[in-house]
């Protein structure tokens, strides 16, 4: 028997800025309604590029949410992250008064898959189009991968352990696990997550190198994981930030405990080697279950990676079966990201947010644009499915070869 970890990590705040909603309520509403917001790419300068469909965050006005001095020195990806962090902190009712005397107890962890691409492209254009003296003073702090962690730390006054996982998609889960380990070692709370803004024109050019990028132009057919029509993935903007806290610490201040981050494991099986990701993902699931002290049949819902590439979808279906046994064919599997696209490191954090909201609402959101599943999985399609959910499994794989799994639990005695 494995003894329980002394210091447990719980989610107390959720902040979402996603293509289907620029706050957590809007995100959950469209997610459980199964509405797809995938649409033609409209970001300026992308019109002539072969990427046709993406999940864009629309109706997001940074100036209404963030102070001007922070806006001018940051890229869109950091605008999303700062806004999502604000929502999460509000949701957790965690304010300066709670940590003014102990700033080293609250850390910030983000994952970043590409950094400040739009800001960077603008400065590259100044440099090469006009000359080196036209490059602005904020390029050095806006483009790099650590921008969001640094700005959230400064804006909130969080001096605790700060970290940045510059990773492929699975990094979103790795960042959460990093935060949980930081809490196990003594940090009281961490603002953690990921938000991305990969739709600047040059960023899109870079992504065209991904063989698995879908370039179809029909939004309803561009990203259809687990179907025989699967043709790759659609990229997206946005993401989510969470507040996670040490359980006792959260209870002491009367915070609403939303879920426990119970287990995680990460493996690596090589870039775009999807068949090998079967074993990698299965090992990650087994590791996460072990850390959570959770039996396979306790998993009530799986939020799948759902890359939308036949070999990858097949490997994922087999990995779920390998790791969960017979239960793998019965457990409901969903992939709400088929309605919003894959926001790289932000994608699995959005799945974690959706998983927590699913457990709270006893409702499994469906997989938009997917009706004709061709794998031996119970994929939730069409409408949301009511179900009593105590434990959720979130899966993620990255284009550079990472696999990760995370087990989330509903708290047994929610204190409101």
């Amino acid at each position, binding site marked *: 028997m494995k003894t329980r970890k002394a210091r447990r990590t719980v989610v107390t705040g959720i902040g979402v800025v996603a293509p289907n909603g620029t706050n957590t309520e809007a995100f959950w509403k469209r997610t459980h309604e199964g509405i797809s917001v995938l649409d033609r790419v409209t970001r300026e*300068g992308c019109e*002539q590029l072969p990427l046709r469909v993406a999940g864009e965050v629309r109706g997001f006005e940074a100036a209404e949410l963030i102070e001007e001095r922070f806006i001018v*020195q940051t890229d869109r990806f950091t605008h999303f992250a700062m806004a999502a962090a604000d929502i999460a902190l509000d949701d957790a009712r965690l304010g300066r008064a709670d940590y003014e005397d102990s700033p080293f107890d609250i850390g*910030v962890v983000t994952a*970043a898959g590409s*950094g400040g691409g739009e800001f960077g*492209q603008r*400065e*590259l*254009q100044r*440099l*090469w*189009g*006009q000359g*080196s*003296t036209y*490059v602005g003073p904020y*390029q*050095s*702090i806006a*483009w*790099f*991968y*650590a921008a969001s*962690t*640094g*700005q959230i*730390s*400064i804006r*909130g*006054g*969080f*001096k605790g*352990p*700060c*970290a*940045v*996982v*510059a990773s*492929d998609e699975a*990094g979103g889960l790795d960042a959460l696990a*990093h935060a949980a*380990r930081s809490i196990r*070692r003594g940090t009281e709370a961490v603002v953690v997550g990921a938000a991305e803004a990969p739709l600047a*024109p*040059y960023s*899109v*050019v*870079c*992504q065209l*190198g*991904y063989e698995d990028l879908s370039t179809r132009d029909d939004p309803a057919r561009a990203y259809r994981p687990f179907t025989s029509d699967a043709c790759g993935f659609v990229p997206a903007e946005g993401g989510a930030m969470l507040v996670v806290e040490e359980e006792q610490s959260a209870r002491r201040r009367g915070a609403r405990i939303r879920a426990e981050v119970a287990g995680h494991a*990460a*493996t*690596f099986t090589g*870039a775009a080697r999807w068949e090998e990701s079967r074993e*990698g993902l299965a090992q990650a699931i087994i590791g996460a279950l072990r850390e959570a002290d959770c039996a396979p049949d306790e998993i009530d819902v799986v939020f799948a990676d759902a890359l939308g590439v036949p070999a990858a979808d097949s490997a994922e279906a087999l990995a779920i079966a390998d790791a969960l046994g017979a239960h793998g064919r019965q457990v409901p599997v969903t992939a709400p990201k088929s309605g919003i696209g894959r926001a790289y490191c932000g994608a699995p954090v959005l799945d974690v947010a959706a998983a927590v909201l699913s457990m709270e609402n006893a409702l499994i959101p469906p997989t938009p644009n997917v009706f004709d599943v061709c794998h031996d999985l119970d994929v939730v399609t069409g409408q949301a499915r009511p179900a009593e959910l105590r434990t959720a499994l979130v899966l993620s794989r990255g*284009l*550079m*070869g990472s696999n990760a799994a995370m087990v989330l639990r509903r708290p047994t005695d929610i204190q409101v």
Partner: protein
Amino acid sequence: MTRRVGVTGVGVVAPGGIGAPAFWDLLANGRTATRGITLFDPAGFRSRIAAECDFDPAAHGLDADQVAKSDRYVQFAMVAAREALGDAGLDPEKVDPWRMGVSLGTAVGGTTRLEHDYVAVSGSGARWDVDHRPAGPHLERAFSPSSLASAVAEQVGAHGPVQTVSTGCTSGLDAIGYAFHSIEEGRVDVCIAGASDSPITPITVACFDAIKATSANNDDPEHASRPFDSRRDGFVMGEGGAVLVLEELEHARARGATVYCEIAGYATFGNAYHMTGLTPEGLEMAEAINRALDHARMDGSQIDYVNAHGSGTKQNDRHETAAVKRALGAHAYDVSMSSIKSMVGHSLGAIGAIEIAACVLALVHQTVPPTANYESPDPECDLDYVPRTARPLKLRSVLSVGSGFGGFQSAVALTRTGGRTP
């Protein structure tokens, strides 16, 4: 039962020489590798000097496919990883691949190729709506910083946790810190850890020009990096990479490996103050030092050498001097402290790993590398900076500290095996 973490292999790609022996030779002799920029034409830039690597990937064993796929900074890491594995005498095929991880840092990732191809697709900055057709192959790898850890993981056959860490200029310390945690906490037995950066490109040089963080001492590049000296005028950009083989101590002993030293403690904090500015008090860096020492179950008085961040900017060197005094108290005046950035420049995310490699070699050689170019004292920097000449010294425990954009402050404690309080 605490799991302890040994360093069993070191690989370095640094300005002035490729490989750990050449690197140590440079440091031990106090030579500087800073010079006028040759990687591009720096005419018109404010700072036109850097510490560059004379690097030929093919000569160091990378095949054509590896070279084509990898940006320069990834190539540095692969060459350093190869050296580190050889040095450790570790055959990756004899390690359980699911118990082997990779943790590598970088601050600016694939900017070399990103900028190169940007020029092609934009008509040299003529248009926002870039044309994808002139883009070269493998550009997605330059775009995705996880390609760094991914490339090295494929090279060594690791199947455990593989991550790229990017906390600006503390990336190297943090990547090694995360690796240390991953072994100590039992997730892996072996971790290939380090950092790499190749930032000597027009965009990165220009962005530091814009905030006057780099030295403009273009007429005397060999003496331009002057940490702690009163005439310092900014850092000199560098490039390179360093990779360590970290191994759970019993795992290393069971295979009869030489353990150079242990990673004994690590901590990082944010200053929550400014993305590029530092407070004069150094409170957060002192906190990082104290927590790293606590983690190592060591007292500040046991530290024999502080490998400084010592970037050579006015504010950094003052901040750091204050932080070391705050953390080590009166012992700060006795401890030897130096900045190798005086010799190999500041390679952003890579330098933390290069500095930890220097600490490992300092412990092995029982010698403190000097601060080159240190001539005229600054009244606000009044510690023993080991001027110009390496110092033979009995070293048991050393500290490496770093400070980076974003406000991050990190510290790593290393000790010869047996150097900790029982």
